[in-house]
């Protein structure tokens, strides 16, 4: 640690994950030896590290302490890619299908939020979701006040009298939605496929060490095949993941219900190849640019370049920093790992 991961042939790799419904399989894969098994198969070592603070894990990855890290498509664009680290979205694990939502107290509509406070983690996917919700109702963000509120305190914050509306994600969302008088106004179900949970790796490292990518993808889809099953093994896996994230099987299954998992690699490949992905990323980058998150040096949303599996690109192709890649998932789909 301490030095950026220099691209070269390596034997051992570190990836970071944090607690979230779509990333809990990494806990299972790491603890049950699935990752080790696949790493051994390719003659490498992979250390899977749990970081509780999501942003800190991305920061550490961006600073070079890890070769890979889980994050959303939006954060992948803003932090590592915006920070000049060429990154590849290796695995598209799922997209949020109701896992993020806007909740209000009482009988309000989106348009009624005008002039009110909305508590959310600023510059996060919640903020993005709010922006999309406001678009749908035709009002602008400047018509209301966004209060930056730490995710850990969101549930408690909603219980105080002065908070009227929050945007947050699961499991906080279901806790808040269960409050008496809470009303869910808008969720990621309304913008399917726009909030994507991915495993992002260092592009150079991946290019120099394809085995690293293969091992990760192999381990991931083996885990998927276990957890998707409804038999004892699948339940055991899911209850493991539930407990690891502080709840139980039922709680975890409830969270999975609002998550569109790509259990089969082919699903993920199809999703990545669709036109929709580039459209989504275009909306995302404009959102980021509007909020100054692409870096103050960014003269336009085109500043950071992206590539898509179909050969499509967005932004400055001389500064391509985020690559959506389906080669490895494709190998998994083809059973070639």
């Amino acid at each position, binding site marked *: 640690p301490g030095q950026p991961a220099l691209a070269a042939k390596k034997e051992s790799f570190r990836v970071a994950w944090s607690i979230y419904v779509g990333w809990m399989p990494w806990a299972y894969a790491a603890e049950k030896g699935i990752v080790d098994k696949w790493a051994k198969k390719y003659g490498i070592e992979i250390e899977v590290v*749990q970081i*509780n*603070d999501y942003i*800190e894990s991305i920061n550490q990855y961006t600073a*070079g302490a890890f070769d890979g890290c889980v994050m959303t498509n939006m954060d992948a664009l803003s932090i590592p890619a915006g920070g000049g680290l060429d990154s590849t979205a290796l695995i598209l694990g799922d997209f949020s299908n109701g896992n993020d939502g806007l909740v209000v107290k009482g009988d309000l509509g989106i348009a009624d939020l005008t002039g009110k406070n909305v508590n959310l983690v600023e510059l996060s996917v919640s903020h993005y979701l709010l922006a999309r919700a406001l678009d749908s109702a035709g009002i602008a963000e400047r018509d209301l006040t966004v209060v930056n509120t730490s995710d*850990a305190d969101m*549930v408690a914050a909603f219980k105080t009298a002065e908070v009227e509306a929050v945007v947050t994600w699961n499991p906080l969302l279901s806790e808040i939605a269960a409050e008496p008088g809470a009303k869910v106004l808008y969720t990621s179900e309304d913008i399917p496929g726009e909030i994507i949970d991915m495993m992002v790796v260092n592009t150079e490292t991946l290019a120099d060490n394809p085995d690293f990518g293969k091992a990760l993808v192999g381990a991931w889809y083996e885990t998927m095949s276990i957890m998707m099953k409804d038999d004892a093994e699948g339940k055991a896996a899911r209850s493991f993941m539930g407990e690891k994230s*502080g709840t139980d099987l039922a709680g975890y299954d409830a969270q999975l219900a609002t998550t569109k998992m790509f259990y089969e690699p082919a699903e993920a490949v199809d999703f990545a190849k669709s036109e929709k992905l580039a459209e989504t990323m275009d909306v995302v980058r404009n959102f980021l640019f509007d909020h100054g998150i692409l870096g103050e040096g960014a003269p336009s949303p085109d500043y950071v370049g992206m590539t898509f599996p179909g050969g499509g690109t967005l932004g400055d192709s001389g500064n391509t920093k985020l690559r959506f890649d389906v080669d490895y998932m494709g190998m998994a789909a083809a059973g070639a790992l």
Partner: protein
Amino acid sequence: MGRLINRRPGRAGQVLLGALPFILLAAAYLMASDARLAVNPNDKLLPSVQSFVDAINRLAFQPDPRKGTYILWDDTLASLLRLGIGLSVATGFGLVAGVAIGLLPLARSAFAPVVAVLSMVPPLAILPILFIVFGLGEVAKVMLIVIGVTPFMVRDLSMSVATLPREQLVKAQTLGASTWQIVTRVVLPQTLPRLVSALRLSLGPAWLFLISSEAIAATEGLGYRIFLVRRYLAMDVILPYVAWITLLAFMIDWALRHLSDRAFDWQPGERGL
């Protein structure tokens, strides 16, 4: 007896008086909890005593089904280890630097300004850098405690060293003491009681830093558990954990105070604080 400053409670009165605030606090909690539960029986914010008992029983006396170990004790062990190492390092460093800065004009000129400045840097704001420098493992957690606590120790000890009567230093020199001997035989022994006080005053902040660091990168520890269940607002776990942390810290504090009263019985003045 007239004046308030001379009125001392008896042994029993002392215990009673000391217990009173705790009883009042407990009563206030129970009333608030009852009131909330009456409105919403599922309220998680101020759980009933029964929920606490259940949670404690589950965490402390039932083996974790996955690992077969007892969660509370695992967490406690992990946290205490980090705390112990962090505080030892901070204390050792604080003692050395505090004595140097308090006693030696050269060291004071060189380091007092930088310590005064560094003590004002909020460590939580530069976490990314700290994690890059110290990694994300145990070292980082211990270092966060060290970085958080040491500046206070250094400043407190150097201030207390500087208040040693000059006569003593002069006297020691006339008895032929070198600087090193003055440090070891005159200054250090008289600084130890203040060191213990500083350590006691640092306990609170040290736990704070421990919890913060465990909330960022850990897979066990008291702070980790609180962080983990906080997203479900599981106050039935959080509050016993907080109480347990408080109890642990208080016991350490109590032990240090008694150690100090015993070991440094040359000290004049009142005891028991």
